Every structure is written in structure tokens, then in C-alpha cells.
């Protein structure tokens, strides 16, 4: 069984500083000084691939990222976790790329490679779109199952049995005949931490580096034309004063409303 895991390098949202008024043009949006890391949902996708190999045996796992020249570090982390090979499609950094651009590039690489399964994180934490994976499935004319948290091999690599959580906390059990694309939701299987020895080896590993132009000239189909602060859906009155005073105000408010 051959598996491709698509991973994204994103700015660390926890340490990122956000201006009150974002730049007028989305193209001017930068994350200067913010550390970058692997998208958390993609770590779960890597973990899912490794588990599939552990249960299925003879598999090869490739990890792929589309990004600027610095993006290779997430591939090395994936290799440190246990992935066999890293593919870096180099492309100029864009904060808000079209999912079709990324999807077409990955599809151009994957089309001839006879993968049985392509895994993606359920979405990127920064753009929260979940577009690239399903678009790849559409381009390859493969079935797509999104937000899967558990999967098990059935019929020796021809069918996967998958589980996901849907609206209202219900669990769906689905089966898919391969090849297929699955997007992986965070959950049951915590991503392993790369062993130091594996990380050291990963640092020496020769990544497969491809300029995006050598693969395809994708059509964007759409663009992000504005970034704006969100609208308030409730009053959002901010309490003022010392911590003690705020605690007192809240407590009075709860009593006045008969809540406690």
C-alpha cells in the first residue's frame, strides 16, 4: 500500500500578534517574527498513516508539502516521526493561496504515482478551509471522506473502514474501496513525538525538491480580496477595573440574573 500525506507549514497562531486593523490588501498580510510549525491536523494525518503501516505491513509513506524554501522543515519532522520520503513543491509564500492552486500542484505530482491512499489534515489551522484535500479527490475522481478519526484496513489494503464524528456527537462508520482520499480529524491517536535519532537522520535526508512550475500552471479560480475584523454577534461589553472588581461585578451580575 502506498500512502501520501499532505502537510502544511503554518505560522504558530498562539504566538502570532494580530493587529486590530488588518492591512487593506491581503497580499500585505505578513507574520513577521512568528515561528512556523506543522499544522496540527496534519500531524494527526501523519500519525494515521504510520498506524496504517503498522497494521498493514508493507507500505511506503511519502509526505508532501507546498511552500517556500523554508517549508522543508515540516517534511523533516514528518520523516522524524517515521515517514519514508519527503517531497517539497517549492512555491513563493502566499498567506492566502487559492486551494485550487495547491490542490492542482499536489494532484499533478500524485497522479502518476499509484498511491492507494492520500491523507490530509481536516483543515489548516490558519485558513480553516478544508479545501485542498477534497479538491485533490475531485481532480483525481477519487472518493473523499472528511474528518475521519479512526481507520482500519479491511480486505488486505483494498478497503478501509473509517469512523468519524458527525453533527450532534453521532459516530459514522463508513467503508471505502481504495484508492481514496481521507482527511483526518484530531482525536483518538495523539501524534507521536519524533525520536531524536530519527530527527538527526531526517536532517540528513535528501528531500525531493520540485519547483511548482515544473509540475503545473494551476488556475486560481478565486481569490481572497479582503481581510476584516469579525463583526460582533453579541454586545461583548468588556469589564473594566482590577481583577477583584471584575470578579465582584460578575458575581453581582450572576445573582441579579438569578443564575446562582
Amino acid at each position, binding site marked *: 500500500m502506498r500512502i501520501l500525506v499532505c502537510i502544511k507549514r503554518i505560522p504558530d*497562531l498562539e504566538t502570532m500578534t494580530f493587529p486590530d486593523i488588518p492591512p487593506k490588501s491581503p497580499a500585505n498580510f505578513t507574520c513577521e517574527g512568528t515561528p512556523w510549525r506543522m499544522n496540527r491536523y496534519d500531524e494527526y494525518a501523519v500519525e494515521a498513516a504510520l498506524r496504517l503501516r503498522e497494521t498493514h505491513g508493507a507500505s511506503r509513506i511519502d509526505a508532501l508539502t507546498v511552500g517556500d524554501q523554508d517549508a522543508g522543515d515540516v517534511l523533516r519532522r514528518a520523516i522524524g516521526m517515521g515517514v519514508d520520503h519527503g517531497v517539497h513543491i517549492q512555491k513563493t509564500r502566499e498567506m492566502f493561496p487559492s486551494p485550487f492552486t495547491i490542490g492542482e500542484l499536489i494532484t499533478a505530482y500524485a497522479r502518476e504515482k499509484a498511491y492507494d491512499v492520500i491523507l490530509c489534515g481536516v483543515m489548516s489551522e490558519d485558513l480553516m478551509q478544508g479545501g485542498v484535500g477534497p479538491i485533490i479527490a475531485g481532480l483525481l475522481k477519487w472518493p473523499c471522506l472528511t474528518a475521519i478519526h479512526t481507520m482500519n484496513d479491511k480486505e488486505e489494503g483494498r478497503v478501509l473502514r473509517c469512523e468519524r464524528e458527525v453533527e450532534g456527537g453521532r459516530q459514522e462508520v463508513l467503508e471505502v474501496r481504495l484508492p481514496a482520499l481521507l482527511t483526518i480529524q484530531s482525536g483518538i491517536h495523539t501524534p507521536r513525538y519524533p525520536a531524536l535519532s530519527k530527527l538527526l537522520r531526517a536532517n540528513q535526508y535528501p528531500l525531493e525538491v520540485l519547483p511548482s512550475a515544473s509540475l503545473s500552471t494551476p488556475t486560481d479560480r*478565486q481569490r481572497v*480580496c*479582503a481581510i476584516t475584523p469579525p463583526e460582533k454577534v453579541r454586545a461583548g461589553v468588556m469589564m473594566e477595573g482590577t481583577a477583584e472588581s471584575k*470578579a465582584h461585578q460578575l458575581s453581582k451580575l450572576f445573582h441579579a440574573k438569578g*443564575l446562582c
Partner: protein
Amino acid sequence: MSARKVAIIAEVEQGKTHPAIVDLAALAARLAENESVEVCWLAVGSNAADAGDALSGSTGYSAIALEIPCEVPPTGELLSEVLQPFLGDMQPDVIALLHTSRSQDYAATLAVRFDAAYVSGVQGLVVQDGGPIFQRAVLGGKYMAGVKADDRPVVLTVLPGYFKFEGNGSHSAEMETQQPSLPVTRTRLIEIKESATEAALTQASTVVAAGRGIGSEDNLDLLSRLAALFPKSAVAGSRIVCDAGWLPYHRQVGVTGATVAPELYLACGISGAFQHLAGMSGSRFVVAINIDPHAAIFNAADVGVVEDLNTFLPLLIEAIEKNGLDTDER
């Protein structure tokens, strides 16, 4: 210029649809503010005609019911195969779906098939000359991105709860039923296991919810102590807190977890991503406590407190206990 065509896809399960599906008519009506728009429902699934009748009756838009006779809901793959010929005949400019687990499986496939743009998680719309701009949350909900299609059709998945259809249900509109031929598919829905969500959570009057901002599992104690001061209360968590194993998944609130609507929702260290907001937006009164003054949760709260939970929660607990004593003494 001829009217722009909007197709709204309604997934049907034994004649029933998601309660928010009718709200997609409000999005269609907003599109019609700026240009002439022709809207058609595509109700697809088991007993689709019942749903098609109901939707066309309440909105006045025509409907086509695509009957798929089956016990379990059809998979996304089957839905997209069944829908494609009808959408191909119709050539819509906008294909709107509700943003659900199932629609995420096939909405992008429709976009690829019809050479359309694809915008998921739509929660706002700017109508202007030169084409609509669809708004969706990015960067943990701190900003909204406005997305525009480049001179081509667009497939949208629309989050429940952001558009509200206000019309009354007494229209007569065309409704036709079709029996599409069913293709062989590679996906199969085996079973749906019912929710393990505790009734204690969905029926609670006060929900004290923990987000990543609580910092460590140890601080759940503080949240439990705080919750204990409210009658009929429960402690819940965001997906991240449940992923970390700090709370079991049946305590998760959000788009995939439980949907709650308590009298008081006390969000502690919750960032406010839309996936979480979708599970608590019906709460009567929302108080958010977060050390980050820019946290998106403050836009969805009635009252906001910017404080460190470690120091603030003990003060709040003390203040409530004391206030309670004062009241009792009187």
C-alpha cells in the same frame, strides 16, 4: 442580462432535512438584492419529495426532488453522482450547500466538475457590483476573509446559524420528483452510532466550558468548583481540550460535539473558532474570560473579561460564595 441561477442542495433523510437548510433561502434572497436571481431547491435522499414540498412551500422557490430509496443516508460520493446530471442541465452560477460533515465530502468535487470556485464555511455575504464576496473566518476566527470567484460559478458550504430565513410558508411553487439512476459507488455508510453526549450537558442551565487557554488539566478543578456554585451546571470543553485528554469527548461542545443552549455559558480560555461557536451560539447569556484581548470569543460574548484564569477564577469563586452568603444573611 439573464437571471443568475442559484441551486440549493438539501440532503434528505426519510423526508427530513437539517433545520437550518431553509435559511439558505435567505442567502439566495440576499444575492437577489443586487441582481435578478432564479432559485431552485434540489432535495436529494429518501422521501425527498416530502422535503421538496416543504421547502418550496415555505420559500416560494421551485424544487426538484431526487429520490434515493435507502435505509441509511447516501454517502457524499453517491450524492455528487446523482446531482451532477441535474446541475449540468441547470448550469447554476451558485451552488449552495449547508456546511455539514457529509457536504464536505462532495462539495469540492462538484466545484471541480463544474469548473467552479469553492468557498467553505461561509458565514457572511457582501453584495456589490462586480459580483458577491463570500466571508469566512480565518486565523482562529480573529479575522474574516472575503473570497471572490474569478468570473465563474461558485460552490458554497454555508455554516448553520448565520443566515436567517424569515418568510412565511404559504407559497405555491413548482415541484417535480425524479427517480435518478443510482451509480455503483466505492463508499458505503455502514452504521451510525448514536451520540454518547451526556444529558447532563445538553440539559444544563449553566455550562462552564474549558478551552486551551486553561493551560493545564489541573485547572479543570477550578472550573468544577466554579460550576458547583450554579444549579444544574456542567463542565464542558472545546475540541482541543478533549483531544488533550483533559475531558472525555462526550463533554465536547462544537460543530462535531454537543450543541448546547444554556441560560449561562461561561467560556474559560476559549479562543472562539467557528467550530466551537456553532455548538453554543444559542446560549442565552455568554460570559467569556480570556487572557488574550483579541480572542474571537469576545465577539460572541455578552460580557468579556480579560484576565488570567489562574488568578481570576479563585477570585470569582470567592466573590460568588461571598455574595451568596450576603444574600442568605439578609
